């Protein structure tokens, strides 16, 4: 089995969108006739190449709009890169942003099955793992309550519990561990360690340099869609934090 599980080669992502994203049909037609539709080209990723090895915890840092999420989305196949190619080996499980695969009207139990199905698990597996998922989430009797009554911490616990229950080959986490209480953070950290010792590769995006520094082996620093730096976590985080003060305040302003 090859050691490289994510191989990103010369990926460029160019968005060609009209300036006011949402036009009504009437506006579209009248402006099209007048030739007034303004498209703007926005290059979110410029010629990105890197690879991630099996079992690595790979971090992505950068400012807002640096292209972190876009990069994750191309890896997760949600977005198709304009040019370049991405090869991944194995099952990718995206850790969904707070409950985006959840439905507020359904109970926690129903959502475990729904979300599990969305993440590509099969029925037998979910039935077998159900107890474990509930136990790990620590939701107890709340599992039979419609999740619109959940707090955001409860949601992220449920979300993490479902996503991490199998051993996906690649786990994608976009800003999630910052939520949930301290206890749960410890728990999820140890679950992640467990996953990683089992060979799961983790891609982690965060604004929080501290989280990245503590968790990741290697880090990619993106700036304006380009790779600014790639290397050992400590090294890259140091450089990132050593930026001029203007940018620093920018980071803290998040």
């Amino acid at each position, binding site marked *: 089995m090859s050691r490289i599980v994510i191989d990103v080669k010369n990926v460029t992502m160019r*968005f060609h*969108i009209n300036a006011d*994203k*949402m*036009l*009504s*049909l*009437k506006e*579209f037609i009248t402006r099209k006739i007048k030739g007034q539709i303004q498209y703007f080209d926005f290059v979110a990723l410029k010629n990105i190449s890197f690879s991630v090895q099996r079992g690595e915890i790979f971090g992505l840092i950068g400012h807002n709009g640096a292209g972190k999420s876009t990069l994750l*989305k191309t890896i*997760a*196949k*949600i*977005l*198709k890169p304009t040019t370049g190619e991405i090869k991944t080996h194995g099952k*990718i499980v*995206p850790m*969904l*942003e707070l409950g*985006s*695969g959840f*439905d507020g*009207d*359904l109970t926690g139990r*129903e959502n475990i*099955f*729904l979300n599990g*199905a*969305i*993440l*590509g698990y*099969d*029925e037998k597996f979910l039935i077998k793992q159900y107890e474990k998922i509930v136990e790990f989430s620590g939701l107890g009797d709340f599992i039979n309550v419609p999740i619109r009554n959940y707090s955001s911490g409860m949601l992220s616990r449920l979300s993490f519990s479902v996503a991490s229950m199998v051993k996906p080959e690649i786990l994608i986490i976009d800003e999630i561990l910052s939520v949930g209480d301290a206890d749960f953070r410890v728990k999820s950290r140890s679950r992640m360690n467990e996953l990683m010792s089992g060979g799961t590769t983790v891609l982690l995006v965060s604004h929080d340099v501290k989280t990245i520094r503590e968790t990741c082996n290697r880090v990619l620093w993106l700036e304006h869609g380009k790779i600014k730096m790639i290397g050992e976590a400590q090294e890259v985080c140091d450089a990132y934090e050593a930026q001029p003060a203007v940018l620093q305040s920018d980071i803290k302003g998040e």
Partner: protein
Amino acid sequence: MLYSLRKYNFLIRQLVNRDFKKKYKRSVLGILWSFLNPLLLMMIQYFVFSNIFRNSIPYFAAYLTIGTVAFNFFSEASGMVLTSIIENSRLITKVYLPKYIYPFIKILSSIINLSISLIPLSLVCMASGVSFHKTTLLSLYFWVCLIIFSFGVGLVLSTFMVFFRDTQFLWGIFNRMWMYMTPIFYPENILADKYKFVLLMNPLFHFLKNIRLCIIEGVFPQPMEYVYCLSFAFGSLAVGLFIFLKNQDKFILYL
């Protein structure tokens, strides 16, 4: 595509399930509404059209009911498929799944609704003295054509909807116009001969005519009708799939 339908079988069941649970979540009668709703509507329409507007159509109750069930299915299915992409925008922007799954789920839900409303339909037929013919089963062929046709229309609409949110409103009006152009509660010979072509071009008219022929009169439709209906159905599906698949990679930029 068939392979992936099997692969996503569990997911599709979960999502159809969700549609149903949500629809009836906070109602007392729950699933019974799927059955009651068409029945009550039919009673109202029957009352209006048989007492206020006089007509001489034999087995009028059955005639009318088939018309409304078929057309309601069409407008419900196309309407549900229309919103299928924008409704699931949160999922589409977060997880990779083949995009045709979303419209597919909606058409499945509306097929289930259709099957449920066939129960009141058969009750009405029995009550108005329509007997069971061999051809009653044959009508299934035309129901299926109707379903495929509606799916194709819905696919086109759902694509348009992503780029222009006006689609929904335009479709609402167009749909209503289409309803009046289709002989649901009036006999087809009400139109002057020179406007007959409008009917002949209307796919829904063909589906409806043959379903009625099969169920009410127990007569085999003309051979050409099978061809017409099938070509309407697959013509619509082909156009729908073509437009949908061609644009699906752009959806995410507009959600």
